[in-house]
């Protein structure tokens, strides 16, 4: 089985979010970039397939040269080779289009992407990619088994979960649950040394323009101070929620 894991290069969760150029650009100053947390679960699951079922695992990112350390980290975790599509990730559609070309050229059977990236949270790349290449698609995937060309997956739904059967070629939007967090792989010294020798191929983008365009950003209005209610006066809390906040 040939597996492709899509790796999104995102600001670390604790990053302060700021904008520059009159609030039109994300300010990367002082921001640490990491593998998107949802993709990390997928990458570890792919390692499991590699070790237990003899799959090959490539990772891919659509982005500029600045994303290479993130791809090297994925190689250090155990991916066999990395591909970077040399173009900025403008919107979900444009990214999916580039990925579709990589999947078609590489003849992958299984594509593991994250449920969503934690920067734009659109949850659209995996589904669009599946639509473009005509593969089956499972979103919010929390468990995946593959037997030959048949696959069984569990996905989270509102208020529960659902078990589905499907077949390869398959794209999933994965998340926590695909593997336990305690099983997430961290690169060790040997992995880091080996990653330096693994191929990281840069491919030029296919022609695809974005369909959406973020023109400006804003931060939520500063919040007023919390209104404290005395623990001995819970009546007041009920009154505030009813009269002031009007939520009960």
């Amino acid at each position, binding site marked *: 089985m040939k597996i492709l894991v899509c790796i999104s290069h995102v600001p670390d969760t604790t990053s302060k979010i700021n904008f520059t150029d009159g609030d039109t650009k994300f300010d990367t100053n002082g921001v640490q970039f990491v593998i998107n947390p949802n993709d990390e679960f997928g990458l570890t699951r792919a390692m499991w397939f590699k070790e237990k079922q003899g799959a090959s695992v490539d990772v891919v990112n659509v982005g500029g040269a600045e994303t290479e350390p993130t791809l090297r980290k994925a190689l250090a975790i155990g991916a066999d080779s990395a591909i970077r599509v040399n173009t900025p990730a403008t919107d979900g559609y444009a990214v999916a289009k580039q990925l579709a070309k990589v999947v078609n050229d590489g003849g992958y059977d299984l594509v593991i992407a994250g449920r969503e990236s934690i920067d734009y949270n659109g*949850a659209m790349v995996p589904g669009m990619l599946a*639509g473009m290449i005509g593969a089956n698609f499972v979103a919010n995937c929390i468990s995946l088994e593959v037997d030959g060309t048949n696959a069984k997956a569990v996905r*989270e739904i509102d208020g529960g979960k659902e078990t589905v*059967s499907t077949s390869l070629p398959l794209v999933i939007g994965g998340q926590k649950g695909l593997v336990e967090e305690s099983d997430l792989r961290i690169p060790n010294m040997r992995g880091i040394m080996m990653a330096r020798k693994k191929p990281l191929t840069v491919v030029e983008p296919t022609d695809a323009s974005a369909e959406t365009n973020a023109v400006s950003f804003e931060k939520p209005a500063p919040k007023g101070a*919390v209104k*404290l*209610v005395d623990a001995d006066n819970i009546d007041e809390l*009920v009154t505030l929620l009813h009269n002031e906040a009007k*939520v009960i």
Partner: protein
Amino acid sequence: MSILVYTESENGKLKKAALEVVSYAKAVADQMGTSVTAVAVNADNAETLGNYGASKVLLVKDDSLKAFNAKKYAAIIENAAKNEAAKVVVVSSSANSKYLAPLLAVGLDAGYVANVVEAPSNVSPFTVKHSAFTNKAFANTEITTDVKIVGLSNNSFGLVESGGSAAVEDFSPSIPDSGVTVESVDKATDKVSIADAEIVVSGGRGLKGPENWGMIEELAEVLGAATACSKPVSDLGWRPHGEHVGQTGKPVASNLYIAIGISGAIQHLAGINASKVKVVINTDTEAPFFKAADYGVVGDAFEVVPKLIEKLKAFKAANA
């Protein structure tokens, strides 16, 4: 040309989010000088959509569509959008709508923006505001394609009754084979789900153990709320994974979020920031949640929550 909106139902009943997306679609239609057509699958009360601004409902009745299927549902909406020559398609932000919308976007060659929180600031160019950076900021995004898909964040627009009525028409488009078959669904049917809930009551590690969740459930029951938890609580197995909210868990966009014994780590807040009113109950005055909350009680959950339950019961009795 019209605005098309996909309205979700469960066991034949339209969801509240369905009424909200129709209310939103009506606002967009007014801005663009057109009308709203809704698509519903197996809904028994489709005509009620008229009251929220739909003038026409395309109703698909088909037992084979009882279980949600993203590809089949996307095909139905795509068909309807083409029939109606819709320029804008509105969907909700439920897990199912987010599942089908990217497939629909490819089918319609339409630009799609998710997590939208307001009516468009402009319809030419078509510009919408949506949350980004896990609710730490908003982006104003233009959709440049001819057909546009808007994914509305739950509870962000509200319900607007317009007193209109809708003509319900049977609709039976051809539906493709789907490569994904639902084998089984495991869902607590008597519980409010986090995504649908207007109120969410959430417990953290401060509750010390699963045996103490009785009061959380009781509080949720009094409020008609869904229950949720912080990540360590689900990691420890005190609560099911599906209840874990935050950046790596479920997003919450409720009207009221009550956090009990939760410190308010940035990854937790990222997932619940879209909630309108936040209440924190915590023994530690330094807990970061006090900076994010609207109302706070510094106190022991084991004393405060039973009192709150009692007061709410009295409030409900007085306002019944």
